């Protein structure tokens, strides 16, 4: 088993929560992992990414080679475009939120961005804010996206659920329930749209 995943978003959008959840699930399944994060300056509203590598064998590089990512998971549509060069052209999947985070003056037209994503051979685009709101809170949008990506991770869904319980343990039972629902809603969206 080997999965190379790029996580993308804007500083402060919670991609590290997604990374930590996948990482925890991978450990539960006894996999090896490496996860390169961005800390420091670019965290302040700039573009951020994380390279997450899972494998049943030892992993060499902390960085995923260009053109070899199995998955790009983006919590922001324009940020999704930033990493299409990382995707495996034949088999790579793009999982992206459709909700723009507009903190720059020259943000492109959303429709143009989505059209670019829709040109890719394999993609899921999801209105994660709407789905999260339906589950109780827009705060869970990142876990909705994780849910949408869950069939492509090569991990058991139960492991992801356990990981969500772990990660949100300190935030109280309500947050755990909300995020488990969000995870499920994301999964259902993908099942309906593939």
């Amino acid at each position, binding site marked *: 088993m080997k999965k190379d995943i790029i996580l993308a978003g804007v500083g402060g959008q919670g991609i590290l929560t997604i990374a930590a959840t996948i990482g925890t699930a991978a450990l539960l399944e006894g996999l*090896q992992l490496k996860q390169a994060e961005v*800390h420091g300056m670019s965290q*302040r*509203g*700039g573009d951020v990414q994380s390279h997450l590598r899972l494998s049943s064998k030892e992993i060499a590089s*902390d960085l995923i*080679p260009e053109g070899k990512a199995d998955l790009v998971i983006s919590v922001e549509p324009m*940020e999704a*475009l930033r990493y299409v060069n990382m995707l495996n052209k034949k088999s790579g999947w793009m999982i992206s939120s459709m909700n723009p985070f507009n903190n720059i003056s*020259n943000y492109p037209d959303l429709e143009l961005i989505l059209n670019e994503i829709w040109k890719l051979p394999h993609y899921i685009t999801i209105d994660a804010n709407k789905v999260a709101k339906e589950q109780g809170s827009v705060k869970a949008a990142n876990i909705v996206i994780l849910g949408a990506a869950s069939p492509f991770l090569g991990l058991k869904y139960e492991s992801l659920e356990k990981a969500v319980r772990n990660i949100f343990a300190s935030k109280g039972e309500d947050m755990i329930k909300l995020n488990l629902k969000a995870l499920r809603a994301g999964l259902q969206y993908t099942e309906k749209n593939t």
Partner: protein
Amino acid sequence: MKKLLLLGDEAIAQGAIDAGISGVYAYPGTPSTEITEYIQASKEAKDKHIKSQWSANEKTAMETAIGMSYAGKKALVCMKHVGLNVAADAFINSSITGANGGLVVLSADDPSMHSSQNEQDSRFYGKFAMIPIMEPTNQQEAYDMTRYAFELSEKFGVPVLLRVTTRLAHSRSGVVRKEEVAQNEMRLPSDLRQFVLLPSIARKQYNTLLSKQIAFEEDAEKSGYNTFIKGKDKSLGIIACGLAYNYLIENYEDAKVPYPVLKICQYPAPRNLVKKLYNMVDEVLVLEEGYPILEELIKGYLDNGKKVKGRLDGTIPRAGELNPNIVAKALHLPVAEGFDISEILKGRPPLLCDGCSHWDSFNALNEALAPYSSGRVLSDIGCYTLSALPPLQSINSCVDMGASITMAIGAAEAGLIPAVAAIGDSTFTHSGITGLLDAVNHKAPITVLIVDNSTTGMTGGQESSAYGKVEDIVKGVGVEENHIREIKPLKRFHEENVKVFQEELEYDGVSVIIARRECIQTLARKMKEKARLKREQKEANAK
């Protein structure tokens, strides 16, 4: 033992705890900050009474660590690469005094300048100080080598440099801990003049250091951290240093490289192993994350030996960090390509947070400076450096920690009046105080804006040494009290604040304007923590 999922930085921290340190000394700096933060948060470290409070700057951190080593205990000192410039005086001389208790200096380099103003390679400093250097390739090695660095330091009686780069510092992987080593008892050096670098003693000590060089090299041959890996194809030999080794083996199925490979993680470079490789191959490729230090050494100034490829001949780009594809190209391996990046994609540079006090401080400053010609604001290193970018475009320099005030003096003395220095509270106590003393002594016509958000913001909100002390320091340095002004950087005080700036810009002497409002990130964190405690209390009561 159970595997821990740790950042490279955290692996170093855990390694240091398990190696029996009694103190970690540091100033926050990306990508080194998480080491000290991990020790500060560690219950184990607390139980062991390991000292871990932030220092005012890297030099004071380095000196405090030397003091702990003098007293016989083990100390770790951490900084980012440019921090080693600040600590350099103490660092270089610590190789002459030698170490008593184990002394390990961690310097985290930032090739490609993700969060830095240059990409200097700390291995140069290690060579300059003539001490052993360890350079781990992965998180487990970061843990193991931190422990080994302490062993080496005590074995040879010298400080040891531990060098990592951003990708290892900020990448997470599994780490297995080993048996803990006890802390040292206090024990002063047997020669109580060992640390007295009077010329007569320093000359002796320096000779001692020189005489240890052979032993350092021998250890690098034998420690097992430099490994020779056989390969059938002798048309090329590869020397891969630290992280570069990962990118090399990433390109081959099951890490089976057809060429002989020398993996180097400990310096001084193991001469016999290098010779062995050099003699058996037609050409040499040197892969280093950082400057071409080893490449230059092996190639030689006259370059009259075998062909040595690397950053100097263009096989590898001269600047920036390595990655698997750069290494693949250097080896003429096929390189995978993803999809083309769309032209509609826009850059998204980092920004000051919404609601940050710096917006209000610099908006007021911009307005007060509007009547003057542009280019008058000398600034410093922190979140507020982002005010150089649109829309604020307020500042005109960012050179090194503390340079705002001193550069403003120089610019004013060249005729740029008014000149403004903009500096954060933490940077002010890091390296600004002495500059302000210069300004007072020079009677320089400058206006110093101290943007006091009561934290070290850029690195994630660490405690600021300046907290609660800024006015007293400014007064103590000798700034006239009626030219020390405090403003509240909020939109609703904008007009008043502009007026304060205008008045002080016109003053022919040193004024200090303190713009104080807490960082909204640390404020939000505190409120969250409060809410969490409240919720837990409620849940406990319900039970």
